[in-house]
């Protein structure tokens, strides 16, 4: 229901103020990507240049960090799509001993502060003497990526008639055919939305990453370390602009995909 009452001007100003407060910092970050001053941030920028984009893409450390971030996000998301969907299907379809507990444990990594997950994983990795690698990062990221997929898919399943699966089997389709023609089409947009959110979460994750990365740096970690030493500062901003673009697009898409279906698109983070 929409109300027909017009908002007063003071409410409009307050809303505008809130929006500006949230989004002006983003604009400033974008602005500094074009500044000719490389040691510090001065406002207004002393001069306009696009050279930092070229510099950023030439720098080996930027490329390496970007590559690692994309790789980890892609693997963690794929893993989450498979495991999260399977877990959601199990919790939806059957009642078994410990079902509620499993459901809670799945959601825990996103409810707990990242620092707890991080420390826990760090000590586990230490105890098991696993060397830090892409895979330790994937492991860390998968913990919260699974939740996002699980929540999205479970919400979709809960609005899906269980009899659909029986109807499909009744009409001659075996398990794989039922999965392909009935189950997957019904959860497709939930998978897409969950997957994109998981990717975006993984791509800009810092806390768990700090504990599971060892000497490697993903893009956010690289940016953090870059802020400490003021050399070619606008390069950081160029990368930030890139990250905004990469994470913004899937989140907007996920929003539109699940808009009509009242899904739990995001989750608590």
């Amino acid at each position: 229901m929409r109300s027909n009452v017009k908002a007063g001007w003071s409410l409009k100003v307050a809303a505008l103020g809130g929006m500006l407060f949230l989004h002006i910092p983003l604009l400033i970050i974008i602005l500094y990507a074009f500044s000719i001053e490389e040691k510090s941030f001065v406002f207004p920028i002393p001069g306009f240049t696009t050279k930092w984009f070229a510099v950023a893409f030439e720098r080996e450390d930027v490329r390496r960090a970007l590559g690692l971030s994309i790789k980890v996000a892609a693997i963690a998301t794929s893993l989450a799509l498979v495991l999260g969907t399977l877990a959601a299907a199990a919790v939806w379809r059957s009642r078994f001993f410990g079902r509620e507990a499993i459901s809670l444990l799945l959601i825990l990594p996103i409810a707990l502060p990242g620092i707890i997950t991080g420390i826990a994983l760090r000590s586990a990795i230490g105890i098991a003497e696993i060397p830090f690698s892409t895979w330790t990062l994937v492991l860390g990221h998968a913990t919260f990526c699974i939740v996002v997929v699980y929540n999205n898919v479970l919400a979709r399943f809960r609005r899906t008639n269980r009899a659909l699966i029986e109807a499909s089997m009744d009409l001659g389709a075996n398990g794989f055919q039922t999965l392909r023609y009935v189950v997957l089409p019904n959860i497709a947009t939930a998978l897409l939305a969950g997957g994109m959110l998981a990717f975006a979460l993984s791509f800009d994750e810092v806390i768990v990453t700090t504990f599971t990365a060892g000497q490697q740096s993903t893009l956010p970690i690289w940016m953090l370390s870059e802020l400490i030493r003021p050399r070619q500062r606008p390069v950081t901003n160029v990368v930030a602009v890139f990250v905004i673009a990469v994470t913004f697009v899937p989140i907007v898409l996920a929003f539109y995909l699940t808009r009509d279906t009242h899904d739990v698109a995001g989750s608590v983070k």
Partner: protein
Amino acid sequence: MAGAEATPAVSFQEVSRRFGDVRAVDNVTFDIADGEFFSMLGPSGSGKTTCLRLIAGFEQPSSGHIKVHGVNVEGVPPYERDVNTVFQDYALFPHMSVGENVEYGLMIRKVPKAERRQRSEEMLKLVKLDGMYARKPSQLSGGQRQRVALARALINRPRVLLLDEPLGALDLKLRESMQNELKAIQRQVGITFVYVTHDQGEALSMSDRLAVFNHGRIEQIGSPSEVYDHPASQFVAGFVGQTNLLDGYLAQRLGGFPGMYAIRPERIRILTPDAEVPMGVATIDGRVDTITYLGATSRVEINVEEGRLTVIEQNLEGGTAVAERRPGANVRLIIERRHIQPVSESQ
């Protein structure tokens, strides 16, 4: 209809299905003849739907044997059985059009597209949905969805069609017209229909035979008139139609022997207290307690010695009497002996 020696379409031999300690189906044996319209009638939780799911293959019996057209179906998954189901809530695939829903079974069996299209158009015509091919199920009314579910099942030409309370979600008018239509379609396609319902009126009006379920057991199997006129048990007499159940003194007085008897309210005739009683009928005097006008009929409650009887009378034009029989009037009731039906006690 198939002869006695023909292979039954469905055969249950001492079938039980237990869920933990609960016996949903308890040692049930029956045959359904080929081409028959067979109803399974009972209250919720009586085991009728579980029997249907056993035939479909969604459940496996805990013990006993089920045969479909003479073939033992133990361990045969639903997708390999030559039966199709019309689900209670239709279970149409929401992401497919009406036509794609109807064609689903053919698509799975890799029937060429052109033939699929032609057969689904025929089916939609049979269920009076021509022109709805491209619609989505969400754009249809409840009655139309019901027809799509029927078409989707029938297009596979199953040897047995299972219907799980298919009219339960429809309003009364629509339900009555769908009853006639279902029956007509069944005659047209000649497929065995196994129909689960808790509506006794539906079961009586549509079935060739019906089975009355109670607590996982079958209380009685027979034609609608057999079950209605000669209920085998107290439960059947009470569940199928209205009935006067008699025991104790009144049973002995009217039935002649101790035990339990059922008398249908419309089988009792109300006469004036001094009326002559014909030969060979049971008679008892009483006093009118209440009269409820029901339109075509009236229900008269009459207090008799050691009990109370309900009588249903047609409100015929120029009929004697309801006007004269006010509450408090003395009356004489007569019942033909063949309508006093001995019944066994139920749990």
